[in-house]
């Protein structure tokens, strides 16, 4: 960019007006990372779960099943039925038989990552056409939802 290295003096009424055309002081540029700054906020994105991060046991933990049910009712039920019926998203009947536990947990806590990288998740997006929202569910809550899904699929 051009700069004009000169200045002129204008006599104005009773006062002096200075117009400088010199380059000003450089402004310091420090990059700001909004994700970093706001990471403690309510809306969370989980970290990816790997195979082996989740242990399933029988019989089912009924406390978890009940907690998972209440999370389901507030945050999932609008789009997912407990039957095979597809509403906005797929029905949950037999989901624990179709999908790995880690896959389910990642879909709940890490949906952005899954839609970017997981072919199965991408296939579902093509079918449903609505991105599954991040519902701000913690890893522990997601684990409870998984327990509720297992219960829904007839496990004891």
């Amino acid at each position, binding site marked *: *960019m051009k700069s004009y290295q000169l200045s002129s003096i204008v*006599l104005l009424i009773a006062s002096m007006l200075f*117009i400088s055309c010199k*380059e000003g002081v450089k*402004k310091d540029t420090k990059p700001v990372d909004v994700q970093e*700054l706001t990471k403690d906020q309510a*809306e969370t994105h989980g970290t990816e779960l790997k195979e082996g991060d989740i242990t399933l046991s029988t019989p089912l933990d009924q406390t978890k099943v009940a907690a998972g049910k209440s999370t389901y009712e*507030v945050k999932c039920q609008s789009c997912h039925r407990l039957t095979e019926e597809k*509403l906005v998203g797929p029905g949950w009947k037999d989901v624990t038989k179709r999908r790995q536990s880690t896959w389910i947990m990642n879909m709940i806590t890490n949906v952005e990552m899954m839609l970017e990288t997981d072919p199965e998740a991408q296939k579902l997006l093509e079918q449903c056409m609505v991105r599954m929202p991040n519902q*701000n569910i913690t890893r522990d809550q997601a684990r409870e939802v998984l327990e509720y899904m297992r219960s829904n699929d007839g496990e004891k």
Partner: protein
Amino acid sequence: MKQSNLQKCLWLAMVGVAGLYSCKPKGTQSAVSGNAASKVYVAPGKYDEFYNFVSGGFSGQMSVYGLPSGRLFRVIPVFSVDPEKGYGYSEETKAMLNTSHGFVPWDDLHHIALSETDGVQDGRWAFANGNNTPRLARVDLKTFRTAEILEIPNSAGNHSSPFITENSEYIVAGTRFSVPVGDNLDVPIETYKQNFKGTVSFVAVDKTSGKMNIAFQVLTPGINFDLARAGKGKSHGWFFFSCYNSEKANTLLEVNASQKDKDFIMCVNWKKAEEYMAAGKAMKKSVKYAHNTYDESKHMATSTIENEVMVLDPKDCPGMVYFMPCPKSPHGCDTDPTGEYIVGSGKLAATIPVFSFTKIQTAIAAKNFDGEYDGIPVLKYDAVLHGEVQKPGLGPLHTEFDANGNAYTSFFVSSEIVKWNVQSLKVLDRVPTYYSIGHLCIPGGPTKKPWGKYVIAYNKITKDRYLPTGPELAQSAQLYDISGEKMKLLLDFPTIGEPHYAEAIPAELIMKNSQKIYKIEENQNPWAAKGDNYARVERKGNEVHVYATSIRSHFTPDNIEGVRLGDIVYFHVTNLEQDWDVPHGFAVKGANNAELLIMPGETQTLAWKPDRIGVFPMYCTDFCSALHQEMQGYIRVSPAGSNVPLTFSTGKTAPAITEKKDSVTRK
């Protein structure tokens, strides 16, 4: 307003002389040097360095810009209804605009005060004044929403407000108009001198919640209060108010309030006032004012009418109030970062007086008075003066400061910003503004710690600066670089309404706290439907309550029947989303109010009174997903007395056979 002859001369002179010195020819686009564009360019996806909270003037709202780009991020509804956000229209927000006069859906927002800790902006709240129906507002900078509105009694035009002390102990509310106060309100206007009084209110701000509460009012002579500033550092504990109309004129103030050579800056020792409060010197006055708060967990405003205020009369409280003569109807009275100097800007004065806090204290101790005004001691001008800036320009209005001991004063009549040194009182630089600047703003400029870097001019006249838009033009703000010795114009940007005062603050202080969603688990709205199991429709007499949920991309329920003409339908819509930036809207045909715009995890309510029989569509107004267009439903309105049962559903399709039967019976 016409561009003054002075300005024309200025431009002729500049064009001529600039040409001689082979700088670029100067038109009204002039004074922009070659690298201005790169200094204000914030690349796509990058963030601005400062937030600029700008008063919206007669729009009644507060706007939020980025600096240095001048990009508009948000208009926060404060004193005026905003159909875009449902503010003042939804059942939950109506109470925010309640006053002792009832629902007042508009005001004139002039000044901003950002909360401070130890004299430094802390990024928690932005306070604003309502100039017409006297009010104060607090905007929560976590949510960028109005959290509280407090009406000010015994006031008429809350102009000298909000202005804040260095630990946000108080914001103030000085009345612009003196009015009859007390028991005898119905008096002839010409009895102004006998019956009219002014007040300045000290409104305490709770340290943790920010909640406002009128701690006390100071009763004053019947003059007009314009602007104010708190002392800081050594002058912490004092507040300075500029006053005009010491003539006590009640008509043609343009002439009659400009008679005297000097008006006043009123100095209030509020620490002393606190002592008098504790000593029981205040009178309890019976008044009526509204105090409205927005409960973030209930997503609902409540309005309480208060009936009392404590008033301190200076005649009972010696040493609490002093007047300091200041030339010609002062507008700004601004304290420098050290708290030692108070700059008075007499709108009609040819000099800028700078007062010394140390000298004020000495003069008070020595009773160095120049008589009294309505029983209040008037300090001797020469005794309290640090000095005068000579021939600074025409029509000084308002001054802010950088961190290097310099002051920047706006000049309305000569349309310029003048930089001068507070110690030496020497003028260092001047730049024209386009046109007729009112307030100016330096990031952190009113605090102990100015961040400096820029000064922004908020101009009153736009004229030829932008593409014309008919008789009414956008108001113009202008950004100048002040990092060097000389001020440099970088950018024009238009503003909403009419900008008066503004504050700017480093982005980091705000953005780290910016709230993304409301947790649905914490939603305490009594009408919330936290999950589809709670979605329902209920009748209570002629009220039909629809408890609906919304999520990408449907409402539950979305088919409603059984409403009768004469009913009022309340749509309580809960947004079940927990994802940042996924609000849902809600609108229904023929609604006489507005839409709802419901943030993730929030519940809002729209009242709808159907005026005819039929089936009415409702839909989501905020594009939410690829199937947003499908986010819609119907509500059926039957005649009064109809026996169509109240039913509701989502995703229920009638069986084919029922449909057939239905169509047969309808023949």
